[in-house]
Each structure stands twice: as C-alpha cells, then as structure tokens.
C-alpha cells in the first residue's frame, strides 16, 4: 500500500498540459515539405514509394496514401523533407494533398472546417466505438495511448466506449478486410443517429500498403459519409486528439 503510494510521488505529474501546442521531437516525420526547384526529375522517389503516394513535375504527396515512411526522402537530392508538424487531419480527401505551396500553417488553416451542427449536437464531448478492420495494431496501440497518463484524452470529454450503442460515432482503423466488412456495417447500424465516421490511419483512408490486396472489401466507404480523415501510419496520439478537438470545436 505505502509502496504503491510512494510510486505516485515518484511519478509526479505526467500529463501534457497544453495538448494543442504540445511540442514534438524534431525527428518525427510529419507534414512533408517539398521544394520543386531542387527536384531534378530523377524519379527515384516514385520508385521508392510502394504506395504511389508521390508524383513529380510539380512535386506532390498525397497524404491519403503516404505512410510517412521517409523512403522517398532517402533517395532524393533534397527536394523532399519532412517537418515535425503533426496536425495532419482533414475533413476532405482533397485537402490531404501536399504541394510546394503548402506550409504547415496553410495546411492546418483549411484542414477542418467548423461544423455548427457537430458542436451543437455533441457540445464538445464525443464518444467513439473503435473498429479495427484489418489494422496492424499500430494505430490501435496509438489510440490506446491517447488515454494514458501522458495524453489523457478523457479530460476533453473524448473517449472510446465499449458498445456502439453508447457511441456518437465510429473510428475505423485498417484497410477493411472482407472478413470484417459485415461486422463493421453492423457496428455502424447499431450506432444511434446522429453519428460520425472517422478514418484513422493511412490504410483506412486509402488501403495504404494493402491497397492491392484481394482480401479487402471497401464498399462501406462508398455507402456512408466520412466526416474526418486522419493520416499517419500509425496515427500519433497528438494527431488524433487534436483532430477530434478541431472537429468538435465551436469556432
């Protein structure tokens, strides 16, 4: 008992106070920074990218497909770099495309529009049912980390709940395998209206590294409206929490 309490003192406070401006280590591969003038057209980046996420003339990276693996940069003469900017979520797939003009500020500014109805319905407190549909456990571990003592997502009124019946929306990870397609749809239908759908992780958004698999069934995405796209492979907890905070904000 006393030993346990002593641990509390040893641990001190662990939470990140200002989650919206939390510092990120500079080595983190976040939003790409592209410079056309340095590109010599060697196409090494295109060859290096297994996800067809990058194109040249002009340089363009589609964050819907990019797993932020850094391979293109390793082969490039210096035209491709990565900032440590982690607020990567957007409400439309078009907004996920990064070109030379896109700075972190510009990207973030237009990424998620205020939706009055979201604020008035949920009043900033939102509960999710998470569905892993072929996710590799990378995104799942990061979503679990959102709730730990460092990030403490629960303090903002954002939580994962056990049943879709208690949820305001679902968060999908993974490329949606054939074997999970039914359960996913079932879960969606069991969630009471009004509800939101969020795609979390590159493979949920575009199939990612699994895009060529014959074992996927992504029909769900054609049928239902997607409210938010959160890129990353896996999605960093700060990316996720900030995405949701921006999504439910008032103005």
């Amino acid at each position: 008992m006393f030993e346990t309490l002593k641990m509390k003192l040893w641990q001190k406070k662990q939470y990140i106070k200002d989650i919206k401006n939390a510092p990120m280590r500079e080595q983190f591969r976040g939003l790409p920074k592209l410079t056309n003038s340095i590109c010599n057209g060697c196409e090494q980046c295109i060859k290096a990218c297994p996800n067809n996420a990058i194109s040249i003339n002009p340089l363009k990276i589609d964050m819907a497909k990019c797993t932020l693996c850094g391979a293109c940069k390793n082969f490039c003469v210096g035209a491709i770099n990565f900032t440590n900017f982690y607020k990567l979520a957007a409400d439309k797939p078009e907004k996920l495309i990064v070109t030379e003009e896109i700075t972190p500020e510009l990207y973030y500014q237009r990424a998620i529009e205020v939706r009055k109805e979201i604020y008035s319905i949920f009043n900033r407190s939102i509960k999710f049912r998470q569905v892993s549909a072929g996710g590799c456990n990378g995104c799942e571990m990061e979503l679990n980390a959102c709730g730990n003592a460092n990030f403490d997502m629960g303090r903002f009124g954002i939580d994962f709940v056990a049943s879709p019946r208690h949820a305001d929306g679902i968060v999908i990870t993974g490329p949606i395998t054939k074997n999970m397609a039914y359960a996913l749809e079932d879960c969606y239908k069991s969630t009471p209206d009004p509800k939101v759908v969020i795609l979390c992780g590159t493979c949920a958004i575009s199939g990612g590294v699994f895009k060529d698999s014959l074992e996927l069934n992504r029909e769900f995405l054609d049928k239902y409206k997607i409210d938010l796209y959160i890129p990353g492979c896996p999605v960093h907890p700060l990316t996720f929490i900030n995405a949701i905070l921006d999504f439910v904000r008032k103005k």
Partner: protein
Amino acid sequence: MNYYVMKNNQRINLLDIPTVNFESLRAQLIATNLRPIAFFGSDWGENIKLFVALADDEKGEILVTSSLIHKSIKEYESITKENSQYHMFEREFYEQFGIKPLNHPWLKPVRKNQDDYEFFEMQGAETHQVAVGPIHAGVIEPGHFRFNCQGEKVYNLEIMLGYQHRGVEDLMVKNPSNQLVESICGDSVIAYSSAYSQLIEALSETKITPRAEIIRRIALEMERIAIHIGDMGAILGDIAYLMGKETYAVTRTLVINTMLEVSGSRFIRGLTTVGGVNFDISADMSEKIISTLDYVKKTVDKMTNAALNSPTVISRLEKTGNISFESAQELNMVGLMARSCGLNIDSRFDFEDVYYKGIERKAFRATNDAYSRFRIRYKEVKDSIKIVKKLLEKLNKLGNQALITTPNCLVQNSFALSIVEGWRGEVVHIATTDESGKISRYKIKDPSFNNWWGLSIAVRNNGISDFPLCNKGFDLSYCGFDL
C-alpha cells in the same frame, strides 16, 4: 532421416532440399522430437510441393525437407493425430491447398470461410455459451471468442480468427516492400522487418556491415523493452491495479519516444531496409539511450517491487490461467509464453548469432501462471536493458561504417529462411525464388500461430472473469496470425 541441414539466415539451392515420398515423410515427422517451424505448400506445376522445416534448438540447426503431392490427390492421413505439434500447420495447409488431413481432430477454418465455422458445443444442465467479438470492448483487433461455461467456470474456449486476413503472403510475392512488412504486425515492426531484410539479404548473398547489424539488434531489444513494459501495465490494468497500469504506460512512452528520436517513428518504422538501416545511432544518442534506460530500469524496479508486494496483486496473479510444461510442449508453444511455462527456447541464443556472443542467457523460474507471465516480462526487460548497453558498447567501438550496402539481385531457384526472436517469440520468414530470380512463395509464421491454442487451454477451469487477465498475459497477435 532425409533432410538438408541449414543455418538461420542461410540461402540454399532448391535442388539441395531432398524430395521424399509423402508416406515416409509422414513417418519421419511422427518419429522425430524436433519441433516444426514450417509446414507449407507451394504451387509446383501439376504438383503441390510441401516444405517442412524442423528446428533443432540444441544444435542450432534447421532441417529442411520436402515432398511432392500430385494435384489429383485430395487427402492424406493426418499427422496431428500422432503428433499434435502439427495441428495448426495441417489446418493451414488444408485451407491453402485443399488437401485434406483425414482424421484431424479439429479441422476448422484458420482464416477463411468463417461462415461455415461450426463451434464446439456443450450440453447439459446450467451450461451456457458466451460469445464475444469480433469487435471487443476495448480498442483491440478483432477476433471471436466462444466460451462454453458452467456457471462462472470456463470449460472450453474456442477462438475463431481470420478477421484481419489481408492476404499478406500473396502481397509479399507480388510487391514486397519494407513498408508492407512493417505493417503485417505493427507491434513487432523490427522483428518483422529484420526477418524480411535478412531473408532478402540471404537470397541475394548481400553482406551488410556490422554497424547496421548491431543497430537492428538494438532496435529489436528496444521494441521488446517497450512492449513488455506496456504489457506489464496492461496485466495490472486488468486486475484494477491502476497505479501499476499508468506507471508502466508512461514508462513505456519514454522508451518509444527515444526510438522516435532515432528513426522518426515511435514504433521504429523506417529504420530497417534491405541492405542495412536508414538511421545511425550517434555517440550522443547512445548516451541518451543509456540514461533513459537507467531511469526506466529504476522506475520499473520500484513499480514491480510495489506491485509484487501487494497481496491483492499476488492473489489475482498466482495460479490463474495455468498451463503445464507438457501442454506447452505438446501444443508447440514458442517464445515468451513457452519460456513462462519452463520451455527454454529462445532463437536469439539457440541459433548462433555473433552479435549476441558474450551475452549471458539467464534462466527463469517458471510457475506457468499469470504470475509467471508477469515476472518473465520483468526479467526480460532487465535482460534486454543489459543487452542494449552491451550492443551500444560494441557499436561505439566500431567506428564509421556504411549503414546501407546495396543489395545484389536474388539468386534463382533458392530457398532461404530467417528466424528473429521478436518480443512474442520466433518470427519465421521463408521465401523461395523461381528460375528468373523472383520471389515465388513467401511464408510467414508469427509466434501467435503457435500460441493462441495455449490461451484456450490456460483459461480452462478458470472463472470467465479471469479471461482478460489471461489474454493480456499472452498478448497474442491477431494480424500476425491472420496475415
């Protein structure tokens, strides 16, 4: 016995692998006491070629053999009936090639055809079933658990998986990449990417620099430390000892954030590449790793001490989810879970690895229960911290060396096998090449493939409410199993 004897990470010619008549192969597999690490088919013209690899842990050797089965043959007498270690392998082989092992005691789908799955059912007064999944209460991967209980007591747990099946083995033939390998099982990024890289390096006879080799192993041990600490927290979380849960969780963060500084990713993605590694560990960085690990060790020591001195913790862990040494062996369990049952197998040491030379292999006193599964993680965290320090020392002595060696083309008509001891246990990757030097078959075996059945044995005769505790102790992979 008619086998070709090979080492870990070695390339051999396909022609060197003996092709034996199936009946005699079957007799050999029943007679041997070496454990199977692979048993899989490959399309071979009008035949199916069945490859079998056995591990001789004592000698550090791998025995490979094969047999041709004509496509018109649709059944054979199961091996499992005589040697239970083949039970999952035969089910998988049946599912992939449709050749039926007759009299297999449990011939159910592995990853496909879930609609036809027939569950085991128990009948009698007060018996009932509990069905859980595929979507679970927490944020975890999907799987279906079917409990047959009497009152609170679990008589049988049946585990149906396959929800995560993404056809990874086919993708690895069509378009293999580091990025894909890292996403097969995202909690064992380094184990998988090392196995893949070593395999391709073996197939292309590429020798990478010692610096790159050591950095890979440092990453492997850091992965082990991080996940083990996280799991110790998860185990305590499931018995509602929240101080432990949170303390371990934030301590794990320190480890993964240190690796972020090396590789740009908390799960060390992007570090490994065929031919070496993309990032170096500088002298400054290695000091940083050491000081972080010193602090981590201190915290883990204190926390573990507090937890294990708490009677409520001990009473929940001790004698929960027992699995005997004999069962573990019969089921062909591997890795961390096998060691927690007293089976001393660890491919880092069993198969010679020059970079682990001089590192002591410490014994573990197994008690085969949840308590054992908690303690072994603590032990391995301590061991791995020591190993990382030793490896860093070796690394700093090396001086400058290239991080990446350009790989050669793959040698035609070859077979290679790579085993890496990830935090769960042995991750086995095998590939064959065709006459044009392209990969023609890629086979993966995650330790979870062996160990899921162990979980179902462990919960027998336990209260159903202890299932989460047992499950966390095993912490098996769904996607590594489902592929």
